[in-house]
């Protein structure tokens, strides 16, 4: 086939990009070469619209061993231990084929982590669906949950936390973001940088099939009416093979034969070989006849662009081939020497003794396009005037029930009960809390992880929203007693070619950067997913933040369930009564406009760090951050979890009860302390200039404000737990 501009455009390349390829090669590429360029230059692999802005994120810190640019980020947790972690999107395939799309998303992110030598110890996910009324939502939710469970459960890695939301902006584009944490010894981390000449290039894992060809290109385009035709571009996962691959790789890594290793993720053999060559400033020569194939007569084009799962590429020390092969034979996996490193700085591919591709590596990587896209700034919306008469007539308990049963607040037990969250025997905080917590096996330490996003805030004002998500992650880690260490981000947006969507991206990234820099909570890995849009309708901007924190002594972990009757409950942080963009405003007032709650980074840091001090002194019996639904929603969940009630009092502020209980001001937590510690606790809060209100005293089983405003915890529990189960069983 002779390549033409039209064929290039069919591959998702722009006219200018095709022209540039011809200039760089000083000739017209053949079809295999064009396929390679299109795979490397698409948005998913090249970050061509986002690179310019991502550079501004803070990525360094005392504990950071590896920031963005490798398979995953790495942070130091002391005693020669390190945590490898990353979050990644698998949005487009999950909409087309929810089970396989979600499953291979989980498989892909685990490979990113064990490629670096780390054994995965925890999985998390952030999943977002369309309106609960939309005809596709139920099946998509069921398929995605089954897919995540199907893969993670089989691998024997616990899924310890997650987030699920529903919003009509995801009707045509659901989001599936998967995150994995792995544990590695600091001196046994593996990287993807090839080194040395004439070193054997090894292919291990599953055979290459025709599945997932051009998956990365599909993830770099918007959806249209012909979406069903894209099913063949979705990869098919085999968690059993990945479990074998994990064990085989870790066994090989225990020795010293690996120079570099890279998993074959998006754009398969193409991107893995090119990345290794590029980082090592070397060339790689591959004989495609040696690649283990599932189907006969696969062309070089298909072999290079297949996204078959569960494969790895390794550059090995000379002479270690036999020893390595033995390990892969033991685990019944393919092992093939397919090429070698060269000094040519080119990717040279041979098939049937013919050279079928010859491309300088730098043309694919350094010379890949980078765009400074036009973008529009979002003004801070004007505050709504709230009709006090209207809200003063509301009955607090009725509103509370409505909010607890809201799809975005209700218990997600139906989901996480389908994930094995206890395998590996170190899960000390299960899903349903502020963060999942797993022990560092055989030590006194534990690692906490949470994943958060606030699309509504980001949509209303991207800069504030970006900051807020980072702060929420910070708070969720602190709520369980963990010191926040670093974050990974998954940036889900509409089309970068649309000025408004691009503006949302730029300003969310700016907000994330400001907050993570102020909180010393650096970004060590991440991924960008653009084109989450159908025709010209984009999703609400949804950056997901995966936060990781450390508990030096796991016995000091805090949970959110109320512990003891007669203990006193305080709110930390000031309540101003910000109702705009709150769940209350949307669900009860039906009001969608206005600014999101303001983020005060000083207060976030000060409140959080002071709370950690209190926890360190064993003063805190339970804690929970205040987010969606405000104080009363947070306190209800603590009651439900602990099977206890509370006698509430409203402080004598100027704002009214509804505003006090349902507003979503930031930087706040609820804490439980025992009476005997009250003086000491308040002393520490005062000393650190942390605002607090006394919220009430714990009782047996009633949420009680006054004789007219009371409800049993059992009743609240029913409202909180039944919605999702009923929705999914109808």
């Amino acid at each position, binding site marked *: 086939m002779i390549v033409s501009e039209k064929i290039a455009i069919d591959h998702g390349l722009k006219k200018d990009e095709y022209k540039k390829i011809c200039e760089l090669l000083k000739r017209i590429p053949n079809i295999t070469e064009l396929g390679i360029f299109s795979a490397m230059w698409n948005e998913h692999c090249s970050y061509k619209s986002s690179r310019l802005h991502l550079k501004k994120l803070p990525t360094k810190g005392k504990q950071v061993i590896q920031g963005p640019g490798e398979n995953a980020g790495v942070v130091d947790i002391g005693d020669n231990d390190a945590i490898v972690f990353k979050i990644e999107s698998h949005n487009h395939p999950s909409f087309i084929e929810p089970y396989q799309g979600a499953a291979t998303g989980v498989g892909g992110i685990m490979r990113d982590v064990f490629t670096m030598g780390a054994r995965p110890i925890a999985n998390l996910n952030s999943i977002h669906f369309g309106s609960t009324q939309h005809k596709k939502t139920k099946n998509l939710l069921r398929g995605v949950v089954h897919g995540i469970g199907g893969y993670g459960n089989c691998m024997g890695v616990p899924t310890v936390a997650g987030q699920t939301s529903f919003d009509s902006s995801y009707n045509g584009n659901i989001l599936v973001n998967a995150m994995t944490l792995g544990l590695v010894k600091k001196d046994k981390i593996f990287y993807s940088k090839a080194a040395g000449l004439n070193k054997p290039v090894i292919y291990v894992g599953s055979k290459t099939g025709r599945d997932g060809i051009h998956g990365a290109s599909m993830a770099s385009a918007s959806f249209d009416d012909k979406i069903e035709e894209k099913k063949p571009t979705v990869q098919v996962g085999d*968690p059993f093979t990945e479990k074998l691959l994990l064990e085989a790789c870790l066994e090989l890594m225990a020795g010293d034969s690996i120079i570099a290793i890279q998993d074959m993720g998006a754009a398969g053999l193409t991107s893995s070989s090119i990345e290794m060559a590029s980082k090592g400033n070397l060339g790689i020569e591959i004989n495609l006849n040696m690649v283990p194939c599932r189907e006969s007569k696969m062309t070089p084009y298909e072999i290079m662009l297949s996204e078959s799962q569960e494969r790895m590429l390794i550059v090995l020390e000379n002479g270690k081939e036999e020893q390595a092969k033995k390990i892969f034979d033991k685990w019944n996996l393919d092992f093939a020497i397919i090429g070698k490193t060269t000094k040519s700085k080119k990717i040279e591919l041979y098939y049937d003794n013919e050279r079928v591709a010859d491309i300088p590596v730098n043309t694919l990587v350094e010379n890949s396009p980078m765009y400074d896209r036009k973008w529009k700034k979002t003004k801070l919306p004007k505050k709504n005037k709230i009709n006090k008469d209207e809200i003063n007539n509301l009955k607090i308990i009725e509103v509370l029930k409505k909010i607890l049963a809201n799809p975005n607040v209700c218990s997600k037990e139906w989901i996480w009960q389908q994930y094995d969250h206890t*395998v590996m025997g170190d899960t000390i905080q299960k899903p349903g809390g502020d963060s999942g917590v797993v022990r560092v096996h055989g030590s006194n330490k534990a690692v906490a992880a949470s994943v958060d996003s606030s699309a509504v805030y980001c949509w209303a004002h991207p800069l504030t929203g970006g900051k807020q998500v980072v702060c929420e992650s910070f708070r969720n880690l602190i709520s369980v007693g963990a010191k926040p260490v670093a974050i990974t981000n998954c940036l889900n947006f509409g089309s970068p070619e649309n000025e408004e969507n691009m503006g949302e991206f730029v300003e969310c990234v700016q907000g994330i950067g400001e907050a993570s820099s102020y909180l010393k909570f650096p970004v060590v890995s991440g991924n960008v997913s653009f084109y989450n849009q159908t025709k010209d309708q984009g999703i609400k901007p949804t950056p997901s933040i995966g936060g990781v924190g450390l508990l030096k002594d796991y016995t000091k972990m805090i949970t959110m369930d109320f512990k003891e009757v007669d203990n006193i409950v305080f709110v930390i942080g000031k309540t101003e009564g910000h109702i705009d963009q709150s769940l209350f405003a949307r669900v009860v007032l039906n009001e969608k406009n206005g600014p999101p709650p303001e983020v005060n980074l000083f207060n976030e840091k000060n409140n959080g760090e002071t709370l950690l001090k209190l926890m360190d002194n064993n003063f805190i019996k339970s804690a929970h951050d205040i987010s969606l639904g405000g104080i009363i929603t947070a306190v209800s969940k603590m009651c439900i979890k602990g099977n206890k009630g509370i006698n509430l009092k409203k402080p004598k502020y100027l704002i009214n009860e509804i505003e006090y209980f349902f507003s979503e001001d930031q930087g706040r937590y609820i804490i439980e302390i025992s009476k005997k510690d009250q003086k000491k606790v308040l002393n520490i809060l005062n000393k650190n200039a942390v605002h607090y209100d006394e919220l009430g005293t714990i009782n047996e089983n009633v949420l009680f404000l006054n004789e007219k405003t009371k409800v049993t915890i059992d009743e609240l529990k029913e409202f909180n737990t039944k919605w999702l189960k009923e929705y999914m069983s109808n």
Partner: protein
Amino acid sequence: MKSSVITFPGSNCDRDMDVALKKFGFRNKMVWHQEDELPKSDLVVLPGGFSYGDYLRCGSMASKSKIMKSVINFANSGGMVMGICNGFQILVETGLVPGALLRNKYLEFICKNVFVKINNKDNAYFKNIDNTVLKLHIAHNEGNYFCTNDQLKEIEDNAQVAINYCDPSGKIGQLYNPNGSIKNIAGIFNKAKNVLGMMPHPERMIDTSLSGEDGSLFFKNLINNLK
């Protein structure tokens, strides 16, 4: 006391079982499925996981692997063999214990704490245990125990039911049946009671930081009984 845990391709609770057995005093060895012979053991454990990816039928391929000949001989000569979760599925496939394990009634994987009532204490697994009800943990997709009416009669006549799903007080009823198992059966013995297959994972309940310590009770009692 010496124990052996068999690792099949796809086993994923083998390490957890190793940790638990060692914690309570067993000298445990990990045994690869392609070995010919079991090492000298007082207890052999088939751990949980997804041996062979649950392909074909859960436990079916593992039941035919090389080491299983030796395990079956060991069991038939009175040796203690315990299968947990996928290990139970493997035992069923070998025929060492009767019945079959079907897909959960609601077609979903279930991971949660459950209560089980000990039905028969006249055996080396549960003898001398004080509790009648244990809080354990399940995590499975195919734990729906099934057998024919004739088999059920034989099982009951021989007191082969080991544990049943129940409420915290020990009441057995459909409400506390997580997966649709016949008569809430969660675990079952062979006729001689030296082979035990059960869905719950005692190895996930072995310290206070996890969901509970009833697994500890089980293992402490087990090693004492074997001494």
